[in-house]
């Protein structure tokens, strides 16, 4: 039996699967707005004349989604991104008009990218809805126990902070007496309050335990799980905050050092095996340990996603795409030493230096982003470790890591192909 080559397999996987399409070409061509839009494309007239149904369908479906996608992106920026970055990323109407213009160009260049974004938005919203439902259920089941656990956790933090402020023997020697007294009083007050809350909780549990022995042990177990759920909440908030700090850094300050940090961390993480899952429950609820762990996780995820975004993003017009392709071709050739054009480091350096010089001179956040994404295509060394990452089939980030690796192996991968490869 003849075996399929890798190229044949890719072609087969990329082939559009539309056994039964309800699309009617007349429906699209009778829409005067769409035909006028189609005619603006380089190959528009030819498409209209030849009535290439398959291609017209791809573009028509994407065309219909442009307004919805623009509205989705607008909502994302005006709501979540602005809020999560503390107002550091705020776009004006001009930027949104530019985004609409870009999406309209995308209809002709890569129409499926528009539906892909829509799917990302839908998946994100769906996950948020599930999270909201889950949180509500936790609150319902928790009853009066949850506020008490929250109160205790806040008091514990206050005690820890007061203890720190109180200082040790050496630092206390250099503090004024009244400052020491104030700090001691603060510490004592917080400790007393904590004790009271713990006694209240114990008495609630003790009363129940007296009444029903079994119920007492269930209470303890229940409390543990509620504490875990609330802890997971806190960790998630911290993770989001750290992500947004990185994102805001890219646009507001043009600080791409976070990317290098991410790449370094990713390499370091590889040696440790499975570390990608946020191990909320394995960190003994130690905030410091969690924060350190989160920095690694967030940076690693950001690295994965930056590489995927840079490789799949349609950053503007043909000249820009030509430039990206040219940079990639050159650095790859230089790395192999083809044509005696010198070493890879020199090639990287030339492009990177130029990009950094221009980045230093520009204030426009969108331009810094474009340059930053271009810079990603100049760093083949950073993509290699992630591609060699061990399979992590069970965790969510493992699935995404697989997608990133699959994506890096192709010039322009599709999610479907990446997903099928991961499954295979």
């Amino acid at each position, binding site marked *: 039996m003849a075996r399929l080559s890798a190229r044949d397999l890719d072609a087969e996987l990329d082939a559009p699967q539309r056994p039964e399409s309800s699309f009617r070409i007349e429906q699209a061509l009778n829409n005067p707005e769409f035909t006028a839009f189609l005619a603006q494309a380089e190959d528009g007239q030819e498409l209209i004349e030849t009535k290439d149904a398959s291609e017209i369908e791809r573009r028509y479906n994407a065309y219909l989604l442009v307004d919805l996608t623009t509205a989705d992106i607008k909502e994302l920026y005006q709501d979540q991104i602005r809020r999560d970055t503390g107002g550091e990323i705020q776009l004006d109407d001009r930027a949104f008009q530019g985004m609409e213009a870009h999406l309209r160009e995308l209809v002709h260049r890569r129409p499926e990218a528009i539906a892909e974004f829509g799917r990302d938005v839908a998946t994100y919203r769906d996950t948020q809805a599930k999270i909201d439902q889950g949180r509500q259920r936790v609150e319902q089941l928790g009853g009066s126990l949850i506020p008490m656990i929250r109160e205790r956790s806040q008091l514990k933090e206050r005690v820890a902070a007061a203890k720190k402020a109180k200082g040790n023997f050496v630092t206390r020697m250099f503090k004024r007496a009244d400052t020491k007294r104030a700090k001691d009083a603060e510490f004592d007050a917080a400790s007393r309050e904590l004790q009271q809350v713990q006694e209240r909780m114990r008495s609630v549990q003790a009363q129940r335990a007296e009444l029903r022995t079994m119920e007492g042990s269930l209470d303890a177990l229940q409390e543990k799980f509620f504490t875990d759920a609330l802890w997971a909440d806190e960790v998630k908030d911290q993770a989001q905050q750290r992500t947004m700090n990185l994102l805001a850094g890219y646009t507001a300050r043009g600080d791409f050092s976070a990317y290098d940090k991410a790449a370094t961390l990713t390499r370091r993480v590889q040696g440790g095996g499975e570390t990608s899952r946020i191990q909320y429950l394995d960190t003994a609820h130690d905030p410091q340990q969690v924060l350190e762990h989160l920095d690694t996780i967030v940076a690693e995820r950001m690295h994965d996603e930056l590489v995927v975004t840079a490789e799949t993003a349609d950053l503007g017009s043909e000249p820009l795409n030509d430039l990206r392709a040219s940079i990639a071709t050159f650095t790859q050739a230089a790395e192999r030493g083809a044509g005696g054009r010198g070493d890879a480091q020199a090639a990287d350096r030339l492009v990177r230096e130029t990009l950094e010089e221009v980045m230093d001179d520009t204030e426009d956040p969108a331009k810094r982003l474009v340059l930053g994404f271009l810079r990603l295509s100049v760093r083949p060394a950073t993509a290699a470790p992630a591609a060699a990452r061990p399979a992590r089939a069970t965790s969510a*980030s493992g699935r995404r890591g697989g997608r990133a690796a699959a994506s890096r192996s192709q010039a322009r991968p599709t999610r479907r192909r990446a997903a099928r490869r991961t499954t295979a």
Partner: protein
Amino acid sequence: MQAFDTQRFTQLLAAGKRDEAKQMLKTVLSAELTPAEQGAAYHALAQLYLRVQQGLSEQYLEILQELLPKLETIDQLKGQAQDQGKLADVRGSLAA
């Protein structure tokens, strides 16, 4: 952004004319972005935001979904224990 002559860029690099290649690259990169190119950058950022947040949310949801059935079970067991306790109370009062 103006058109980029890929062929010339590669030729310059092959000929070791590093400064000229750099200048060529710089000229192209320094050009103003069109509104659509700016839009493309913000579109890419939104996509990055969505994917990173989605990844974190999935992991959080995983934890939540792991905990919820346990909490539901405890809730049920507690309900049963309470019912049994009440039954025992009634039996006790009847026996007395």
